[in-house]
């Protein structure tokens, strides 16, 4: 049992933190090609892949470390979608992710469908003779992707296909947390098969790792939001004294701190179990807890800031918007509560 970072991990963390502090010295709320190239160059994308795929990491601990740091600066880069979700699927199927690791190729996973909500198996897109027909909804970072990975049914089997983004109809719009998503229409669109057999378990596994990434990002966001709020409580004066001297706000901050510590432990639990036999129970527990704590932290941070916390211009707004969106990918608190009950309580 060891909760210390290894020397390599510590180096990655230090380097990444320094790089991000610099890159986000002026806050960036939209993805940036420069930052993407910078992340690739310092090996951050490679840290998400195991050696056999050409990376130098790929464990749950690596994912947690990288995404907590990205969360701290509110980075909107498509690293989760490209590196963990789509890249993870390609690597698991034995595909080549060299270009992904090098930062040359960005991927997006077109999986969820209108009305499918959070069910990872609800796919109605059909494939016949290597051509796909169907609709995909809210595909994150679809417009900036060099290649789409699309899930579709071939008979009963859930299968994965590489599709050229230029070959589909895209309706794009901004996302609440930055970047663009798109609704996608496939109409007899050609695709190239990725992997063999049924991909359900591969998708569930990739989503479990992406959930870890998202939860770790949420942890970073919460840490940064907490720091901003603490600073604000020390500087802002009302009724003649810093509002941080009011006992009510002190106790509410103490409660936030405790809950963020819970969130950290939940991320640790998932990081240590994401590739193990107890994966599903930990995915459910961690995503549920993170969703609960994220709502509390976002709402309390705005409330304690008062008016300034409601403005777009202030740094908090972007962080809070990203944090509030965590509950809307890969299943929300209630979805995972029900899963946890099935797996652990009932």
């Amino acid at each position, binding site marked *: 049992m060891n909760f210390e970072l290894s020397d390599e991990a510590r180096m990655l963390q230090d380097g990444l933190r320094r790089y991000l502090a610099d890159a986000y010295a002026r806050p960036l709320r939209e993805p940036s090609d420069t930052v993407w190239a910078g992340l690739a160059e310092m090996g951050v994308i490679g840290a998400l892949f195991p050696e056999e795929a050409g990376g130098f990491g790929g464990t749950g601990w690596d994912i947690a470390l990288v995404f907590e740091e990205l969360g701290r600066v509110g980075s909107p880069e498509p690293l989760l979608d490209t590196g963990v979700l789509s890249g993870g699927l390609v690597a698991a199927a034995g595909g080549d992710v060299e270009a992904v690791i090098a930062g040359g190729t960005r991927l997006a996973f077109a999986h969820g469908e209108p009305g499918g909500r959070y069910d990872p198996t609800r796919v109605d897109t059909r494939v016949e003779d290597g051509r796909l027909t169907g609709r995909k909804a809210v595909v994150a970072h679809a417009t900036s992707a060099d290649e789409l990975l699309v899930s579709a049914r071939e008979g009963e089997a859930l299968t994965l296909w590489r599709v050229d983004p230029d070959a589909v109809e895209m309706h794009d719009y*901004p996302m609440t947390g930055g970047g663009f998503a798109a609704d996608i229409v496939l109409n007899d669109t050609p695709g190239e098969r990725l992997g063999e057999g049924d991909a359900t378990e591969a998708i569930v596994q990739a989503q479990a790792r992406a959930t870890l990434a998202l939860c770790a990002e949420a942890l970073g966001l919460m840490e940064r939001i907490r720091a901003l709020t603490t600073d604000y409580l020390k500087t802002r004066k009302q009724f003649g004294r810093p509002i941080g001297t009011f006992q009510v*706000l002190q106790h509410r901050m103490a409660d936030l701190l405790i809950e963020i510590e819970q969130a950290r432990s939940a991320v640790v639990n998932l990081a240590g179990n994401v590739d193990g036999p107890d994966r599903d129970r930990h995915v459910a527990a961690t995503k549920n807890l993170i969703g609960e704590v994220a709502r509390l932290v976002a709402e309390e941070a705005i409330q304690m800031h008062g008016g300034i916390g*409601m403005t777009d211009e202030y740094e908090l707004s972007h962080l809070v918007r990203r944090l509030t969106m965590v509950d809307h990918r890969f299943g929300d608190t209630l979805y995972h509560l029900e899963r946890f009950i099935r797996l652990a309580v009932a």
Partner: protein
Amino acid sequence: MNLDYTDDQKAFRQEVREFLAAELPARLSDKVRAGQALSKADHEEWHAILNARGWLAGNWPKEFGGTGWDAVERHIFEEETTAAHAPRIVPFGLHMLGPVLQKFGSKAQQDHWLPRILSGEDWWCQGYSEPGAGSDLASLKCEAVRDEDHYVVNGQKTWTTLGQHANMIFCLVRTSKEGKPQEGISFLLIDMESPGVEVRPITLLDGGVEVNEVWFSDVRVPAENLVGDENKGWTYAKYLLTHERTNIAGVGFANAGLQSLKRIARAERDGDRALIENPHFAARIARVEIDLMAMATTNLRVVSAAAAGQAPGPESSMLKLKGTVIRQEINALTKAAVGPWAIPFQSEALEGANEPSAGPDYAMPATRTYLNNRKLSIYGGSNEVQRSIIAKTMLEL
């Protein structure tokens, strides 16, 4: 004790319903139902319709052109208009300035300004908050110095809602620095078209623009625009805050929000069932509905006491607090209900522009309303301030 409305009250409710069925333009109620922002012209159109019926000033006495309704009638009107998705009445002239002028203004001020509020000739906004003086209003700094028959105003106001539409602003300004901070504040009416007034929009968390900063640089204001006595503005402001707190519970908004939430939860699929059949989601709806049923009755108890002539006391703090908690919970559940469709951030789509998400219409405003309504527990005296008021007045702690 009984919970039934009188026959007269029931007849009045029927009259309001018929009026709304006949006169509320579908174009406006559709926008309200869909959570779309209303334009200045939309507001003006609805105000004019109400004014033509004599129902614009529900809280004014008849002598000033108001309806003379009691608290229960106002409550019924509020319930019915909210349920019909009518635009809310823009409150600054009608609910805020009007009562202050009626109580503290001169005859000349009443004769001049009140009819212009009803006719829509003036659009008022409120100049209370300043950077550094939010919940702690007494510490405000915006200054007015007497210069013969004018005041010269310098300083800044903020959180001025819909200031971009307004031609007039009523302000709390500092006219003296002596005594306690609450002393030395005056209540001044300022023409926004005066030289030296500048309005800068503030973009909010939800991407919308509804509040503004207002800057004053050597703005000259005729001394006749002082309401009541110099340095007594704090008294008028407190009176106004009390008036602002009628309907502070927002029961109508909460009911409309709850109905909309249930519609969404019936429409959304969650696996093989409707979302509303998810017991955990249903439990969250049930809890907030049960809370709302109780709060609606608390509200009626206060309304009923007000109609019997009792002044609203600290109960309004309780209603404000519980009301915001309930509305914010409904907003959070609505955001949860739309699932992944909460992710699109579609300001243009809400205005009817290009490339909306393929998601259902009801999903579009969910995230923005959730974010925007975080303000409910901040403005008009934050919930923290309300708790302190309750502790002081009701518990004598």
